[in-house]
C-alpha cells in the first residue's frame, strides 16, 4: 500500500449561472439556474513516502481542489483517498495533526499578532513538546533567515517574509507530509531561491513527503523529480521531468549568422526559417537529425560568423501539453 493513494476521485461544484444585467438578476431571484462544474474528474495516483511531487496545470485545472481533498478540507463526491492509512475527510482531526499545509494565497497566521505569538499558539494547538518546538523553531528560522522580523506583527511583513513565516508555521509540529499550494507566488527571485533550497533540503535530509503546486516551472525544475500535470480535472501526465524532456523536448533550433546574404539549399528533415539580419534558423528533431552532421554541413558550405543551438524551455513543452499539441 502506497503512502498516498488516490483512486478515481471526483468533485463537482454547483455554480449559480445567471445571465448578465438587471433582467438576468431578476430572473435569477425567482428561477435560479445552476450548472455543475467538475473541478476534479476521476483522478488516480499513488505517491510513496519521501517523494517530492509537483502538481502543475493551468488556472482552474483542479490542483487546489485536489490539494484540499488530500488535506481533509473538502470531501470528494466519489472515489477514495488514503494518506498514511488515514481517510483525510473522515478522520480530519487525527489526520491533520500529522500534516502541514501552506496556502500561498492565504496566510494562516494571526494577522494582528507578532509572528512568534502565532507560533506559540500553534505550539499549544498541536501540543508540540517544548524541546521539539525549540529545536524546530531555531532550525527553521535560521535556515530561512527570519530573525529580523519574527517579533513583528504579520500585517507589517512583506509578502516574502510572510510566506517564509507561513512555511515555518506549517512545519513546527514535524509533519510527515507537507502540501505547498503555490508557495512562491508573488515572491521575488531571491526569496524564491531561498524557499526552493529550503524545501529541497527538508525533503532530502528529513525525508518529508512533499506535494507542491505552482505556476513557476523553475520551482518544479529545481525541486521535484516527479510531476503530475492536471487540466480540466483530469490527469494528463504522471512521470519524471526528465522523461518529458526526452519525449517531447527533442526539437532543437540551430541559429546561424552568415557573413553575407546567402541563399541556402534545403536540407532533409530540417525546417529552414526566413532570413532575418543575415540570421537563419534551422529547426529539427534531434532524434532524426544528427546535430554534428548538420553543423558540419552548414559550416562547410557557408561562411558563418556565429552559431548557437538551443533546447526548448520546459515551459514551452508544458504549454504544448496544455494545448494538446502533444499528448502525454
Amino acid at each position, binding site marked *: 500500500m502506497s503512502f498516498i493513494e488516490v483512486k478515481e476521485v471526483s468533485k463537482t461544484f454547483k455554480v449559480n449561472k445567471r445571465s448578465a444585467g438587471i433582467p438576468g438578476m431578476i430572473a435569477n431571484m425567482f428561477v435560479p439556474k445552476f450548472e455543475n462544474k467538475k473541478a476534479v474528474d476521476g483522478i488516480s495516483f499513488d505517491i510513496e513516502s519521501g517523494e517530492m511531487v509537483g502538481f502543475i496545470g493551468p488556472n482552474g485545472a483542479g490542483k487546489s481542489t485536489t490539494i484540499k481533498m488530500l488535506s481533509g*478540507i*473538502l470531501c470528494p463526491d466519489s472515489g477514495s483517498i488514503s494518506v498514511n492509512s488515514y481517510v483525510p475527510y473522515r478522520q480530519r*482531526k487525527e489526520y491533520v495533526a500529522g500534516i502541514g499545509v501552506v496556502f500561498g494565497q*492565504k496566510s494562516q497566521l494571526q494577522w494582528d499578532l507578532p509572528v512568534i505569538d502565532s507560533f506559540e499558539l500553534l505550539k*499549544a*494547538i498541536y501540543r508540540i513538546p517544548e524541546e521539539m518546538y525549540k529545536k524546530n523553531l531555531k532550525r527553521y528560522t535560521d535556515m530561512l533567515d527570519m530573525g529580523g522580523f519574527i517579533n513583528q506583527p504579520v500585517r507589517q511583513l512583506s509578502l516574502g517574509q510572510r510566506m517564509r513565516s507561513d512555511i515555518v508555521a506549517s512545519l513546527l509540529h514535524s509533519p510527515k507530509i507537507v502540501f505547498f499550494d503555490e508557495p512562491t507566488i508573488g515572491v521575488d527571485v531571491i526569496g524564491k531561491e531561498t524557499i526552493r533550497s529550503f524545501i529541497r533540503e527538508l525533503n532530502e535530509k528529513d525525508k518529508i513527503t512533499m506535494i507542491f503546486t505552482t505556476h513557476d516551472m523553475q520551482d518544479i525544475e529545481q525541486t521535484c523529480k516527479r510531476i503530475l500535470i492536471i487540466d480540466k480535472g483530469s490527469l494528463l501526465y504522471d512521470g519524471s521531468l526528465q522523461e518529458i524532456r526526452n519525449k517531447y523536448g527533442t526539437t532543437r533550433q540551430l541559429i546561424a549568422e552568415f557573413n553575407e546574404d546567402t541563399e541556402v539549399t534545403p536540407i532533409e528533415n530540417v525546417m529552414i526559417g526566413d532570413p532575418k539580419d543575415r540570421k537563419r534558423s534551422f529547426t529539427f528533431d534531434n532524434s532524426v537529425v544528427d546535430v554534428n552532421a548538420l553543423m558540419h554541413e552548414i559550416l562547410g558550405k557557408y561562411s558563418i560568423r556565429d552559431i548557437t543551438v538551443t533546447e526548448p524551455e520546459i515551459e514551452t513543452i508544458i504549454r504544448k501539453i496544455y494545448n494538446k499539441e502533444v499528448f502525454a
Partner: protein
Amino acid sequence: MKMKAYMAFAKKSFLQKSAYRMEHWMGILNTLIRLVIYVEIYRALYGAREAVDGITMSMVTTNFILSLGMESFFVVDDFYLSYRIGNGSIASEMLLPVSFHGRMLADNLGTAAFKLIFHFIPAMLVAVLFIGISAPAGAASMGLFVLSVLFGYGVLWSISFMFQMFSFWLINVWAIMTIKNVFINVLSGAMIPLWFMPESMKNVIKFTPFESIYFTPVQIYLGKITGAEIAGGFIKQIIWIVCLLGIGMILWHKGQKKLVVQGG
C-alpha cells in the same frame, strides 16, 4: 492534555477583546441605558400599585437586572461560521487538529470571561447600587441559580450553533439570525417578563427553548419555582441543549460535504 489547545484559543480571544476599549465602555453604557428604560416603563405602568398578578415591582426590576446582566456576558457569535465560509478562511480552520465546534466555543468562552469580569461586574454594581435588586430567595436558590445560568448559556449557544450550520447552504445567514434574535428577545423574558404574557402565549413558550435561557434562572433566583419545578427547569434546559446540538451536528456533517472554499 487536549484542553490546553482550547485554553489557548480562549486566552487569545480574551486578550483580543481587551484591544477595543471604547467599544467596551459603550457596551456597559448600553446595558445600563436599556435597564433604566425597561425599569422606568414598568414603574410608570405600575403607578401606585404594589403588585400586578402577584408580581411586585421589585421582582420586575430584578428580572431585568438579572436578564440584562446575563445577556451582557452570554457571548455567541452568530456569524462565526458564515464569516469563515464567506472569506474562505474555513480552509485554514479545518487544518487545525481540533474540533471546529470546540474551537468556536473556546473563542466564545474567552470573550465571555472577559465580559463577565469587565462588563457584567461593573454594570451589576451600578445597577444594584442605584436601582436596587431583590435578595435571592435563599443560599440554595443562589447556588441553583448559578448552575441554571450556565445551562441557560448552553441553550443560547446551542440555538446559535444550530442556526449557524445553515451557512453551508446560504453563506449569508444574516436574515435567519435576525429572525432568531427577535424570537429570543421577545420570548426569553429579557424584554417582557414572561409573567405578563397572556396564558395562551405562555402555553406556546413552554414548548420553546427561549424561556430556558434567562427566565428559568430568574425564577429560581426569586424562589418563584421550587422543588420539582426547579428540577423540571433543569431537565428542560438539558433536553434543549442535547436536541439543538444534535440537530446542529447532523447539519454540520451534511454541510461539510457541501463545503465550497471560496477564493484560491
